[in-house]
């Protein structure tokens, strides 16, 4: 058996799990017009202000390597890990769920424009100005498993691990992988979480084209799982009510698979 030893969240309704829960249950919503989504049929999104990374990033220069999902993840993971016993990090497992990979067209815009000729990618320009202008660290920023990489680096986590992709199910898979790692004795503790941001034009346009009309959101939820009997009171409200969370915080992709933990 396993139990949750720590939790950290970053949402557009705040960072206190219990308070976020109350707000959602009370019908609050963080959805508001987003300038980033101007031109789409619905410009509403649930955006996180910040987050403030002070105290969650050992080397400030690493901030340039952080995509939005990694920025959201660091404070949430850090809060979840507060109770991790000293010396346990080396064997602590970490499982993270992510959604669509971060779009690379904004940072790469000067390079992509430099490669264009007559509406097509031009091979000569690709090897010329396109190459010169392509940000050298962009691939490392956009790799989806970088959320896990940055969280691990900050906290020295070197245990069993996995990065899962998908919607709400991926968040649940990360949690289950963490529970299994502890139950099967492969790790004394395991960090499980999901981090996602859909508040950018490329992602939001893709969603519209796929017929996914729920406003996008962004959030991160992480929990520290350890051995022990589960404890807690029966939930007074259907915290797993996906529609309520979506009305409050937008579509947060794989994070939606972990909303129920906030109770």
């Amino acid at each position: 058996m396993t139990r949750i030893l720590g939790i950290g969240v970053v949402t557009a309704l705040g960072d206190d799990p219990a308070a976020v829960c109350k707000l959602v249950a009370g019908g609050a919503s963080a959805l508001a017009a987003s300038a980033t989504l101007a031109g789409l049929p619905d410009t509403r999104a649930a955006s996180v202000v910040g987050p403030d990374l002070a105290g969650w990033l050992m080397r400030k220069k690493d901030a340039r390597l952080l995509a939005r999902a990694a920025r959201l993840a660091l404070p949430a993971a850090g809060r979840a890990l507060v109770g991790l016993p000293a010396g346990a990090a080396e064997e602590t497992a970490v499982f993270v769920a992510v959604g669509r990979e971060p779009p690379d067209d904004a940072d790469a815009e000067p390079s992509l424009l430099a490669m264009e000729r007559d509406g097509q990618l031009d091979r000569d320009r690709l090897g010329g100005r396109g190459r010169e202008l392509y940000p050298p660290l962009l691939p490392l920023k956009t790799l989806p498993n970088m959320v896990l990489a940055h969280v691990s680096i900050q906290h020295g986590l070197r245990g069993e691990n996995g990065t899962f992709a998908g919607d709400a199910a991926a968040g649940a898979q990360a949690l289950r992988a963490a529970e299994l790692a502890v139950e099967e004795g492969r790790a004394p503790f395991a960090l499980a979480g999901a981090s996602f941001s859909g508040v950018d034009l490329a992602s939001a346009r893709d969603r519209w084209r796929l017929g996914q009309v729920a406003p996008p959101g962004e959030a991160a939820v992480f929990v520290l799982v350890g051995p022990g009997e589960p404890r807690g009171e029966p939930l007074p409200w259907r915290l797993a009510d996906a529609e309520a969370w979506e009305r409050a915080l937008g579509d947060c992709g794989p994070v939606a698979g972990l909303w129920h933990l906030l109770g």
Partner: protein
Amino acid sequence: MRIAITAASVRCAAGDALVPPTRCWAAPDPDALALGIPGVARATCPDDPRFPDDRKGSLAAAVLSALPPPPPGARVGLYLGTGLSSLTPAELALDLYPHVVAGGFDRLAMARDLATDRPSPRRHQPHRVTEVLGATVGATVTETSFSACAAAAQSVLNAARAVHRGDVDVAYAGGHDSMLHPIGYLSFVVLGALSPSRGRPFDRHRDGFLIGEGAAILRLQREQDLGPSDTVLGWIVGGGTSVDAYNVTHPHPEGHGASLAMRRALRDAQLTPGDIDYVNAHGTGTPVGDQAECLAVASVLGDVPVSSFKGAVGHTIAAAGAVELALCLGIFGSGELPGTPGLEEVDPELRAQVLKEPRNGVARHILSNSFGFGGQNCALIVARPG
């Protein structure tokens, strides 16, 4: 854990045979040449209409369709590792370049372009291939690993554990990836990861990797579920994963994370270092990566034969762990340990028994390494049939 591999299918530059490659399959590609890269290792694979402008989806569909279906009534899982879907020339031409105005992108016009017939939105859903193909084998469990170059190996390990626990009766597990397009090349060129000459893992003049593409899927079952007609190609007996937690851009110089993964794999398989007869290295051909891996192999396994396939079929990125494990299955029963295609002069600084050429030898247990950008590592151990 002792999980039978009852079928395997692979597509890579060397073809679809389950045998270690013996020569380099690199060929020139105009887009790669424009970036100073002389060759890439391209697989032969038809485009699948379910995955437009998504080469890695077509590769996955091809290998899955070559496998036998699950037994009637079996609970089935599909576990696939996949990679990044960078911008393709088609996506640029359809979705971005029509909106260039006065030297910049017109974001309002882009936002209003909601045409539903574009491949890009589906291509950017990393789990879509797993879900679409999962339906074709009746999978009630699907899982998509997104762990960079360790993704496929982690999928195989997760699947083997799921079969071992009894979560599913049959697992199809592997990975698929292709970054053989201009932005794919560019992503690695700017990192200095691609060889401007040729892929030659463990060579004293190694200067980066040969990029490839591919897919492989293994069919996994419990021993007690095997029927008289089932053929066992090998047994997955253990695996381990780790994170470097060191640096986003570089592996730990002494391969600490890699060592942890291999030690955990040995512990999981209840084996000792002396039980491993051959190591299929991650062995990309980058100066730092090969050195760190050799240090790690030596520290955990001692003087064990090591070779790499990446000078032959290229680095198939997120698919590499499954592609190379599938190719390793041909080692069992061959009486030969494979060499390292592309390697001319073993770097004398490397502390490992690197095999340049194939040599006689019997492999009872093979350990296969996969290490990803971001520091995710996975080691799998497979035992010979019998």
